[in-house]
């Protein structure tokens, strides 16, 4: 337990030293602001670009509810650019320690592999969740100001559901980082796999049940309708299992010393 704290502490000092603790929340705050601001000015943009002739889009058609705007923040911003940023910021967690030999070195101390992986996951999840929350909160503020306000309890519930999907992104990228040695490959596999999961949401109910990205859909649903379907709980259990599986694979990979 003690070594877990030491490792988490080390991760935070490192994040502070390379300013991750500042730029990551800023990026997500920017992403969070984008959706409501662009949607607000969309009628003006359409008007300016569309001109007076030919097909015109009725500006009133683009009027939207606050809940829709926030849901779009998740679906169009966080699940796309945000997802890539998460994968890129996590891709080096274990790979860089493998490359520098620090992983082998740390494990010559009485440190359990579990403490090592948990230290990585907890610290990175914390900073990413903090960034996502900041971004989501900024989105909430802009949405309430520019559109209709959304019930705060729904926002919190939605953020909670979304955070499970974020946890999966972190543990999955950590696992890929444990197995592969090249940063490019790690980023590619993680981003493609996670985006693919997000894309196939809604294709088929059975796939949705197994899909960790389903959490994102439920989070959006919560914002729009204020509640989620019953299938949510099943999906929640399954995503927890996926998270455990990725952690166990990372653990197995390191204890079997396959990383050399």
């Amino acid at each position, binding site marked *: 337990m003690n*070594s877990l704290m*030491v*490792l988490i502490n080390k991760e935070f*000092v490192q994040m502070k030293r390379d300013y991750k603790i500042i730029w990551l929340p800023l990026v997500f705050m920017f992403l969070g602001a984008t959706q409501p601001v662009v949607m607000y000015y969309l009628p003006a943009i359409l008007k300016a670009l569309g001109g007076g002739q030919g097909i015109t889009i009725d500006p009133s058609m683009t009027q939207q509810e606050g809940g829709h705007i926030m849901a779009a923040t998740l679906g169009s911003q966080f699940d796309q650019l945000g997802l890539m940023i998460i994968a890129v910021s996590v891709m080096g967690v274990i790979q860089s320690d493998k490359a520098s030999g620090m992983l082998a070195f740390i494990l*010559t*101390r*009485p440190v359990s592999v579990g403490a090592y992986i948990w230290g990585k996951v907890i610290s990175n999840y914390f900073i990413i969740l903090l960034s996502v929350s900041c971004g989501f909160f900024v989105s909430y503020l802009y949405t309430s100001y520019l559109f209709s306000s959304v019930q705060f309890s729904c926002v919190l519930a939605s953020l909670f559901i979304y955070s499970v999907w974020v946890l999966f992104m972190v543990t999955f990228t950590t696992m890929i980082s444990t197995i592969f040695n090249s940063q490019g490959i790690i980023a590619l596999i993680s981003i493609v796999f996670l985006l693919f999961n997000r894309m196939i949401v809604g294709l088929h109910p059975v796939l949705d049940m197994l899909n960790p990205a389903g959490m994102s859909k439920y989070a959006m649903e919560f914002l729009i309708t204020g509640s989620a379907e019953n299938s949510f709980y099943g999906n929640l259990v399954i995503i927890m299992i996926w998270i455990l599986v990725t952690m166990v694979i990372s653990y197995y990979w390191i204890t079997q010393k396959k990383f*050399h």
Partner: protein
Amino acid sequence: MKLEIRNVTKRFKQKTAVSEFSMELETGQCVGLIGPNGAGKSTLIKTIADVLHADEGEVLLDGQRISNMKREIGYLPQYPNFFPWMTANETLLFMGQLSGMSKQKLLAKVPVVLGKVGLTGEENAKVQTFSGGMRQRLGIAQAILHAPAFIVMDEPVSALDPIGRREVLNLIQEIKKETTILLSTHILSDAEEICERFVIMKNGKKIEDTTITELLRRNTRVSVSMEIAPKDLQWIQLAGELPYVKKIEVKGSKVEFTLENPQQQKNMLLKTALNHDVDIVRFEAGGRETLEEIFLNLVVGV
């Protein structure tokens, strides 16, 4: 505290790096693991430090598997790599805490250890600004910090310049008084200087396990070596006809005589030389082979 290595075998894809290696180490010993490049020294050391799993066999410290005894081991990798963004102080605090020491204890101990390895004044410098010698010394600092019963070092001085090498050797001399040390090297004079016992490896196998005095005694020459002025080299042919001279070897102006009974015959040889008015520069009986020669004989010869 006793370290036992029992029939350790480690294979990589096609190559067997260490094969059926066994040895024992008692408290207070300093053992040098010598061998040419690729002999399997680093692999063996990594297996002892539990960085690699042995395919067969086991490493026991005090009768327990090494993976349960990590607290008692200090390990210095061949190229100690630290987090470049940490300062020397932070590195030691980090490694020390991972070894299970409390922070209060470390705050008192770290300056002492840094002083010991000669890094006082560099506590707050980032590791990325350190030279190779300083990194090596920081590596030693982290290996001795938690006062382990046993320290393994992989080529502690091979990558250093003569000054750094000297500093680190002196440091190891110092540590050796308190702990058991196993170090690997391919530089014999280093091993000769700090270790009493040698284990020589070749192709992953142990080919010799002995002390330095034993090694030198066993390889004492029964020859007489003589250096003479070049003008008297024709005398050698005459000497070759002497009944008690078994063999003559000429290397430049140096001549080596192998005698039947050097104790009695060396003076007779000297007398003949004097009779022939040979210009003798040097005359030496019972010379020893250098450790390097012994090593080459062992490693190349087997």
